[in-house]
């Protein structure tokens, strides 16, 4: 096993290296690694020796790549990664806090509400990651008190089977056309945060009439919106609504017959958020990791895995970028009740 992990490390290093060279960034990266040795934060983190991540943002593969890159850049810090669904790690953390257990250093989940809640009970520690200046402007300074930050950007869109659908629906509205009756697959807002976000956005845009019409299309409702890809690849349905943008592209890159459309009436953007726990056993390692998220290394990993990057100066895979698509994000302080209402309406009209 030793050998394989070493090989894997070399592989990852190699990939990152190649990518860096090709983007002409090698110089800065090497100086960065060299600089790491003098970094007082790194020294303090190294003294702590370990880091525990509770992360639900990004799927296992991408998250492991980020972890491995961190370990390669900052040797001497053991990283424990608990990668489970966002709501699961949050529930776990909540129980730990209630039981007085302090294990987690850095939390990364797909739901902003987790952080407003944790902030309210004083469970988060403020930190200003220096490299966050490279984030797209729209996502900087998420919390004025610097308790939490953007950890991931994800897009909800439409996906389809290219061989079976010559002209895919170009917008959410187009999904209501007769030709898609019985052809649509989607996730359930009761199980999937992305679909819940989609329901909120669609209701803000088009009201309950859309949901009513959508229900008449007899979509197949799975749990997670990842199921849309499964249904399309299996041939059970041909068009996916509320579908995961990055994941669909990963599957396309793997050679599967599937593609995405960014709807002309806005892809729904959801922010993954991250924060450092107030009672983190390894606070400096957590700070180091949070700042590392905004490094070029991580954005290149994200690029490779078809995720939106966390830096303005690193383009997404296939030359995509935030400026080139129309998107919207659900904002507001009262999202919680709105989500609950959306789920209730969904059950009334779609289920």
């Amino acid at each position: 096993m030793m050998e394989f992990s070493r090989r894997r490390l070399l592989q990852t290093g190699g990939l990152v290296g190649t990518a860096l060279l090709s983007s002409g960034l090698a110089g800065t990266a090497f100086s960065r690694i060299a600089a790491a040795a003098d970094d007082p934060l790194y020294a303090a983190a190294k003294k702590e020796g370990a880091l525990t991540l509770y992360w639900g943002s990004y799927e296992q593969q991408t998250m492991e790549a980020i972890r491995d890159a961190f370990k390669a850049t900052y040797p001497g810090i053991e990283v424990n990664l608990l990668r489970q669904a966002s709501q699961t790690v949050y529930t776990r953390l909540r129980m730990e806090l209630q039981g007085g257990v302090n294990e987690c250093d850095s939390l990364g989940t797909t739901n902003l509400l987790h952080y407003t809640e944790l902030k309210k009970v004083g469970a988060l520690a403020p930190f200003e990651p220096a490299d966050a200046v490279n984030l797209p402007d729209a996502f900087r300074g998420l919390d004025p008190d610097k308790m939490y930050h953007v950890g991931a950007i994800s897009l909800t869109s439409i996906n389809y089977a290219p061989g079976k659908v010559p002209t895919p629906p170009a917008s959410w509205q187009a999904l209501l056309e007769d030709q898609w009756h019985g052809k649509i697959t989607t996730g359930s807002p009761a199980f999937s945060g992305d679909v819940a976000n989609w329901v909120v956005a669609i209701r803000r845009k088009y009201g309950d009439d859309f949901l009513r019409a959508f229900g008449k299309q007899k979509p197949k409702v799975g749990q997670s919106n990842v199921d849309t890809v499964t249904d399309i690849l299996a041939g059970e349905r041909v068009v996916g609504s509320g579908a995961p943008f990055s994941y669909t592209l990963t599957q396309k890159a793997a050679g599967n017959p599937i593609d995405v459309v960014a709807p002309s009436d806005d892809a729904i953007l959801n922010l993954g958020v991250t924060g450092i726990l107030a009672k983190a056993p390894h606070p400096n390692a957590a700070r180091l990791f949070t700042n590392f998220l905004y490094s070029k290394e991580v954005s290149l990993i994200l690029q490779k895995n078809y995720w939106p990057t966390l830096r303005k100066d690193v383009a997404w895979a296939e030359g995509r970028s935030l400026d080139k698509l129309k998107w919207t994000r659900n904002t507001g302080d009262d999202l919680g009740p709105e989500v609950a209402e959306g789920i209730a309406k969904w059950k009334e009209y779609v289920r």
Partner: protein
Amino acid sequence: MGVISTESPGRTPGVAARPATARVPLVKAVAVGIVALLLLLLVVQPFGWVLYNSFHDDVSGAWTLGNYARIVQSADLFEPLVNSLILAVATAVIAVGVGVPLAWLVSRTDMPFRRTIRVLTLTAFVTPSFIGATGWILLAAPNSGWLNALWRIIAGAEAGPLLNIYSMAGAIFICGLYTVPYSFTMVSSALDEMAVELEDAATTLGSGTLRTMLSITIPLATPAVIASFILSFIQGLTLFGVPAFLLTPTGIPVVTTKLAEFYQQFPPEIFLAAAYCMPLLLVTAMLFRMRRRILGRKQYVTISGKTRAGRLIRLGGARWPAFFAALLMPLFSVFLPYAALLLVSLTRAWGQGLTWENLSLHWYWWALFGNSETSTAIVNSLVYSTLGATLCVALGTVVAYFVERRVVPGAGILGAVATVPIIVPGIVLSVGFFAAYTRAPLNLYGTPMLLIAAFAATFLPIAYAHGGAILKGIGPELERAARSLGAGEGKAFLSITVPLMGGGLVSGWFLVFIPIIRELSVAVFLITPKTNVMTTLIYNAKDGGNYEAVCAMSVLLLLLTLLLVAAARPLTRLLSARRTSRKAADTAGVFPA
């Protein structure tokens, strides 16, 4: 307990009659004390937390009856309960209706390839039902299912789907299919250990094969049949994967999918979820009461002082038809779904379909070596399952012995306690274990012991029910003989009862080991980065939509467990008292094989 009491060993006259027995109560007291303490820590404490939580408000944390009030008042919460009951009853009926005749064919008749059928049925047991459901989605989804595609070739392209797995019937079929191994294993081990005097008597009096089976053999196995019915019923209530995959698309909510919603939403309603389990507990308690009324004071003892080995019933012309009928079970539960899973796991990108260029062992390589987490998880899964199953069977058997032999007054309470965990769906139990084991007196958080203890506790009811079913068939005469020759109660148990239970204990061990290795929900809040297990990784891959990886890891999990089962076969034979005596009888030429 110094004298042989032929009526009730529970009444203990003349304890002080012989001085030698003075140490017996001490041993007994210590044993009972240890068992009670273990049950307290493993079951009462976690379940106590679930109960405690159910009376608290999720937001304010204050005492409340509100959770229960909501369950009673809200139709949205009532409907899933009804659906779950329908699913559970149907599952139990299928499991017993198929499992019992299958067990009889395999254990008591000369049907060909009996051992193969036994192994294949175990294979179905190894399969987590959500993986079986995944296989069946590939086979019987209305538009894309391969069997439906085949049907359209026969019936014409315009024909509607032959099968629709996304339906209540589909869910019942899958739940039943993957629960059959429970009833099969429990009943077949009862039949394996059963002696044949009564069957011989029936045959002598002119009763035919079928009549003997229906009027003697199966009734004698009643304790095992009922225990497996109840276990299957509980399976139907507590399974999450199958309804989540198959019933969500049709909009039929059941208790477990509703529970998942409570955990999924923000803020999570975990205290409401705890209260939501209590109706399940009530229904199951009623089942156990019914069991007591049915079994009552009837006798099921077949192994006693003067026993003879079992003998196979000749099926004659029905041998092969019986074999083909028995083959249906592995066909539906193993061959068809695993063929689908295997094909997907062998493709580089499964959406491309089956072409030579697309065939690859990539995902197996990835699962074994390409992913640094998997090897740790495999080792963890094996270690935790082995230790958990051993602890579980040891404790379950001793509790069953206390209850069956009424070793102490009130032993029934120990039995009732040992039955509780399995009724509570895994995800809620996980919260209970979390609360119980992250604080004094048993702070195990982050250690392997946490998972081992939780697994042992979760499946204690299986070990207990299985142990009880076997013990009902073993007469106390031999133990009494040992006692009258001066053996202590502990020694009689270890040197008489345990060997007589022999093969049954081994099958009981697997009956616990396999569910542990495939358990997911209980582990959810208990694993840590260092104590991760195989199923959580498979679930992560499913969560991330990595279908080929899910299939490859499922096939690996299956192979690994089968290897273990195969390795344990010689052990089973070694430990099986009945087989030994059968072999001795064979050698003596008493019974032609």
